[in-house]
């Protein structure tokens, strides 16, 4: 049985394995190799060994960019997970107009970036923006939002709350797989909604929480390109110089593809490490009904 499974296992996984070997491995190796050259798209590359990597250590934008990106990622992933789960739980209930509510929450995630950026530029506007008007009515002082280097990342974290539509959807889908009788069992034992949540909901959707956590981190660490490109150009004072934006600038605006690949390689290794770490914690809190070990 084991041997049969093994054969079927490899067969089923073949499309992805082949896909990886054909479409991914080559380009990944290529970008790694390019990081040791001074290629700038035009002309022939020549090997400069570790020059790019040495330069990165002295690059103040690199350091700033890394801290900005991690700051944003940690903030937006945790805020995002909590908010998305909150909405998913509410949207999972038997409410009137459920379809409308669910679709409404998903809308910002599919609105084209150019349209939502304009809306946010308005929301963040210190003089006319809605957010400062709200603060005003609450008697609070106005903020500068994305025009202030200390407030720009928190502003973007706030903005990411609008984009949780995909995360909500995944949580919603996950919630569907919880057998009703488990909730009933808690009720019979006299448990409250918190007990249900803690002892039934969370463990049963922990595979999905895990997914959203991992994908959230991977995604958020590579995010910010549209915001930087359209709204802030990486400013003020580099405070929103997201890593993905800096990688792009080097590759396509400064003509330093080699350097860009070096930046990217360092970053990828960090991501590998971080993901492995998160995976290593999963046996402690993720409950799989049937993950064949």
């Amino acid at each position, binding site marked *: 049985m084991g041997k049969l499974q093994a054969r079927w296992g490899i067969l089923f996984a073949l499309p992805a394995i082949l896909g990886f070997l054909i479409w991914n491995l080559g380009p990944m190796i290529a970008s790694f190799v390019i990081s040791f050259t001074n290629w700038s798209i035009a002309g022939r590359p020549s090997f400069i060994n570790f020059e790019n990597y040495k330069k990165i250590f002295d690059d103040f934008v690199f350091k700033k960019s890394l801290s900005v990106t991690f700051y944003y990622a940690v903030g937006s992933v945790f805020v995002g997970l909590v908010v998305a789960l909150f909405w998913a739980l509410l949207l999972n209930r038997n409410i009137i107009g459920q379809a409308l509510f669910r679709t409404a929450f998903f809308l910002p995630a599919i609105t084209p970036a150019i349209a939502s950026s304009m809306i946010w530029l*308005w929301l963040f506007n210190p003089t006319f923006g809605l957010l400062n008007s709200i603060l005003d009515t609450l008697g609070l002082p106005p903020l500068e939002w994305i025009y202030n280097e200390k407030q720009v990342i928190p502003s973007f974290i706030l903005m990411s709350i609008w984009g949780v539509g995909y995360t909500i959807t995944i949580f919603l889908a996950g919630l569907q797989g919880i057998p009703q009788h488990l909730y009933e069992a808690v009720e019979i034992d006299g448990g409250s909604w918190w007990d249900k949540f803690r002892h039934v909901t969370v463990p049963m959707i922990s595979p999905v929480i895990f997914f959203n956590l991992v994908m959230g981190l991977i995604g958020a660490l590579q995010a910010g390109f549209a915001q930087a490109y359209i709204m802030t150009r990486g400013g003020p004072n580099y405070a929103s110089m997201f890593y993905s934006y800096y990688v792009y600038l080097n590759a*396509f605006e400064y003509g330093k593809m080699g350097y860009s690949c070096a930046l990217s390689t360092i970053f990828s290794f960090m991501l590998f490490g971080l993901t492995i770490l998160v995976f290593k914690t999963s046996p402690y809190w993720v409950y799989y009904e049937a993950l064949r070990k």
Partner: protein
Amino acid sequence: MKRKTFMLIVVWFLLVSFVGTAEAIDLTFTHWGGNLEIDAIKKMCEKYTKEHPGVNIKPLFVPWDQYVQKLSAMISGGTPPQVGYVMETEALEWAEKGVLLDILPLIEKESDPSVKLKNRLRSIWWLYGGGKKTLGTSVAAEVMITWYNKEIFDKEGVPYPPTDPNKWTWNQFVETAVKLTVDKNGKHPNEPGFDPTKIERFGVTFGNWYMVWFPFIWSNGGDLCDESGKIAKINKPEAVDALQNLCDLIYKYHVAPTPAQSSALPSYSIALQTGRVAMAIDGQWTLQELGQLEKQGKLKLGVAPLPKFKRPVTAVIGTPIGIYADAVKDSDTLKAAWEFYKWITNSESAIDLVRCGLWMPIQTWWYTDPKYIQKWLDPEIHPSEYKAAVISYAYRYAKPAPTYYLKNFAQINDIMYQELSNAFNGKVTVQEACNRIAEKIKPLLVGRYDKP
């Protein structure tokens, strides 16, 4: 009967495939632009194809945001277009590396005057190889000027700015802006009780980018760096004073919006038309939008040169069109590409785009010959003072932006933008910002493309 028809059809196909495709050379022309430009270029390419049998021009629209990535992919793949727009940030770098063709040898052998060096504005040639080579010119010569809303001037009883660039001084400019700025209670900045947080109409607005910084730095006798392009001068008094004056418009005189405030006005044309601003320092290309508003009767448009500190000067900028070397290795293709290049960069061919205000022409006779000036101006679009305030002004006083010659300018520009936005956001003084710029760009100032 059926068999005969079938054979005839086959023969016809064979003939067509032989004759139809044997001679025709396909030229791909890549470009970006909005609707108007896309349509205009499509029509121009169709016209050229019709008038030149044997050549088929295929315009390929690539959105501006993705242009450099698309072209980079095409170039690395060895299949660039024959002719196409070039990103200003990459143009000279690509030319130096041989991606773009040096057309100087072709120009020297050429008899068509429209492409000769002296017949195109001197400021828009893209030179490299120590100044001995060129990839061509910009397809248009866009300068920075002052647009204004005549109705607002009339309402406030303020005389229009002079069209003589020698007479439009900075002090006069500031005075004018003060008279045109009003807060919610109708007060001007120089009146008691003026509330700078509740400004209804700004006297002037301008963007925070190099086409605004440089004309004023130059006008005050300063520059980013010295003639060799290796020593920074951005933190010297001439440059700092100019930028400080710009900053003062916002924080000292309260006649201009902060960057945050101006982000609520994404379009200068709308801001002018709705009376949110009285003057706008912007590029000539905005005329494309402003002209439409004029035609609809919504705006009485006026135009003036830039105000000067010590001497009149404006900056010029324009997308270069280049011939991509790898795509014209074959001599027939090269000939066809060259012919097309001459035609498309002859402003006569793009007369629609010139008349609608998007492009300023590049052959010198458009600026000196009254016949051509008349062809250029559309009375419904170009304000009456356009000839003096823009045409003569650009011809005499336009200086090329550093993109035309300075190495690493893209990166230097980003550094300038980050540091100066601190100053324009009121966080640091201009001197501080410029000191930091001078420090950070030291390793990047490695020289110019047009000097050895």
